[in-house]
């Protein structure tokens, strides 16, 4: 086997060429991990929102809270459906909710549709993982609101103790809550009756969340609700509901993959060029090594190692830059707002995670192997006497 120093030494010897090729791979890694980071951050936000033993009840045909309405009688009846969990004081873990999307003014002077959820105190128990990290829960009928972590500081008045203006009223922010990075953090919660009055909704509730009792099959309960002839309702586990919401993000995956494949091929061509040039420039050297008795295989390996080393260095530089740029973008833009699919704004924190880096590592190594293979093969196939011949 040829020493590693031979492969690496050659990379160092041809500085410009190596730097440009490493640069190409680093840029590809950077672009791909940033984009993949964006997509997986979005997905993480949507997917981490639901839990499997909580049902979302909406009007049949509604794909999200915003476009649904559930009659009052249905809400009353569903609370006491068999299979709905109870809390310690035997109250059903059911949370009737009203969702509207009023304009919030951003600090930069724009406006966004923010999801405001009118709830009852029970909501804190029905939704899992909600923690009030500052202030307290709102009290009913006092014009109070609690805001998610991503809402805080993004909009005018969105801070503890300030007045938030939306709908037809002013709301006093009394608490800030977290929910483990889920999309709930992009929401504002107020008292359901107050919100209904403010938005003049003919039907006070848009949907209902039900916690399923232990030992009851969530799907079975969902079917019973869906089949009830009194109301045209649909029920599904929260996980499924948010999966559907996240489905809209799948197009981004397609784009990410397309992007990765195309840039990967481009970078492969670049690497191939570099290594072909290296083979061409080192013909005599390769001939000498073959004359000395190195096998074709060891020449092949050595060139592949050279190519993989290029890719690896490119990956290292690119991934460090990607993580840094991810932080920088989050720092400069705060969070990245997505509003296209449901008309409500989800604020996503861009984070280039291990998955994104792993994906771009695979890409970089594929570029290394694919870009190195044909030149390495040519090097290995050089016949020593021809390689040694000058000119």
């Amino acid at each position, binding site marked *: 086997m040829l020493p590693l120093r031979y492969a690496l030494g050659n990379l160092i010897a041809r500085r*410009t*060429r190596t730097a*440009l*090729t490493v*640069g*190409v791979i680093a*840029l*590809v890694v*950077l*672009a791909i991990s*940033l*984009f993949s980071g*964006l997509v997986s951050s979005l997905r993480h936000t949507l997917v981490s929102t639901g839990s499997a033993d909580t049902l979302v009840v909406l*009007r*049949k*045909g*509604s*794909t999200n809270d*915003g*476009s649904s*309405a559930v009659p009052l009688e249905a809400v009353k009846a569903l609370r006491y459906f068999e299979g709905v969990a109870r809390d310690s004081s035997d109250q059903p873990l059911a949370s009737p909710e009203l969702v*509207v*999307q*009023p*304009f919030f003014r*951003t600090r930069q002077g*724009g406006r*966004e*549709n923010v999801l405001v959820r009118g709830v009852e105190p029970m909501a804190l128990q029905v939704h899992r993982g909600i923690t009030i990290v500052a202030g307290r829960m709102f009290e009913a009928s006092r014009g109070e609101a609690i805001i998610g972590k991503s809402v805080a500081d993004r909009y005018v008045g969105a801070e503890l103790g300030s007045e938030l203006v*939306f*709908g*037809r009223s002013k709301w006093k922010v009394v608490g800030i809550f977290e929910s483990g990075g889920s999309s709930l953090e992009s929401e504002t919660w107020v008292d359901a009756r107050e919100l209904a009055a403010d*938005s003049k909704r003919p039907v006070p509730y848009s949907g209902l969340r039900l916690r399923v009792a232990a030992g009851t099959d969530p799907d079975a309960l969902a079917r019973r609700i869906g089949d009830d002839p009194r109301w045209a309702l649909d029920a599904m586990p929260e996980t499924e509901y948010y999966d559907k919401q996240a489905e*809209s993000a*799948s*197009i981004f995956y397609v784009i990410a993959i397309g*992007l990765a494949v*195309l*840039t990967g*091929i*481009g*970078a492969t*061509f*670049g690497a191939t*060029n*570099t290594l072909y*040039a290296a083979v*061409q*420039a080192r013909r005599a050297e390769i001939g000498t090594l073959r004359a000395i008795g190195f096998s074709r295989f060891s020449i092949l390996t050595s060139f592949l190692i050279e190519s993989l080393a290029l890719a690896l260095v490119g990956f290292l530089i690119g991934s460090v830059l990607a993580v840094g*740029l991810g932080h920088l*973008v989050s720092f400069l*833009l705060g969070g*990245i*707002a*997505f*509003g*296209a*699919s449901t*008309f409500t*704004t989800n604020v996503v924190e861009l984070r280039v995670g291990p998955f994104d880096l792993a994906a771009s590592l695979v890409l970089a190594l594929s570029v290394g192997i694919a870009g190195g293979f044909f030149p390495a093969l040519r090097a290995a196939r050089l016949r020593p006497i021809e390689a040694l011949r000058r000119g």
Partner: protein
Amino acid sequence: MLKFLPFIWRNLARNRLRTTLTTSAIALAVALVCLLLTMPAGLDAIMSSLASNTRIVVVNKGGLVYPLPYAYLNKIRARPGVVAATSWTWFGGAFDVDRGVTFPNFAIEPDSVGTVWEDWGIAPEQLEAFRKRRDGALVGRTTLQQNGWKIGDRVTLSSTIFPVSLEFQIVGEIPLERAPHFWFQREYLDQALRAKTGTGLDFLGTAWVRVDEADRVELLLSEIDAMFRNSEAETSSETELSYMKNFMGQLEGFVTIILIVTGLVALCLVFIAANTASMSVRERVAEIAVLKAVGFRRRLVFNTLLAEAVLLSMIGGGAGLLTALGLTQALKAAGAGWSPALGPLGSFIITPTIFVQALFLALFVGMLSGWIPAFGASRRSVASALREVF
């Protein structure tokens, strides 16, 4: 210079493999840049192609989901300077209930549509048919294509907001790529609601107003808002352009990322091209020395080498543009036009601006990548170059 073209060409043809690989890499990168740019360009294009500077929109100050009393429309119509006004009321109709709402559909007033959106070029006879048929519908081109509908078809939409399903007959097309709307008569919905619930439709979603001249727009905006101040539903009036900017401002972060990625890909392009240029110059040190020895001037050597790099990247850029055009056609054929998640980002149309931008990118890359090696080679003294080789 022109007489050297064959010489430049032959140099590119000499290392065919490298030229092919470089051209392909450049083509791929340019195609990608084009595709990525279609997204932000889609936003701009929507704004400029759909928005008119004499059309304004009035919405509830509280938000798009907050309705306005229907009586507002006539009050607005009565203002001086208003040529026509119509309302949009979101019907939330789903063609297939399981798939939900797949295109925006609104109840509107058929009489004023043609005036408010006269710049959209809807055929007069179709507008006429729309006015006459109570169950008529005007449908955007992409929505027609995606659902495989044609004029004359009957379709039923089930509302996810109102307790009704309505059957429509498509009477016309909104001939714009970027307007996926489905419009139908407000009266039709009103009567259906009356029959079903006893109460008609007493609110509207947004009001769209055509103003007689651009100079009057600013004044009218403040007049309308003043008219409804301190009422139960305060309004927020703005030009169509500003409305769309606000609406799409929510995509800003995403567009920023797209632009960053585009920039990175473009930079990649420079690197790939520069690598090739530097390799080919390096391998031709002796040749260049000979050229100079026989009397070629520095300037000429420089120009020849630069022209080679520029030619290479222009060929790549051209191929990339064609690829991008082909891909966008394919995407359109595959029906990826209006993805709910991408919204207006998913239009993937190569505009003339993108076309020009891509060509300039290729030219710029060629210049940049060729400059340094060409400069170095033209500067190098003949003696030192020959010494290195022989």
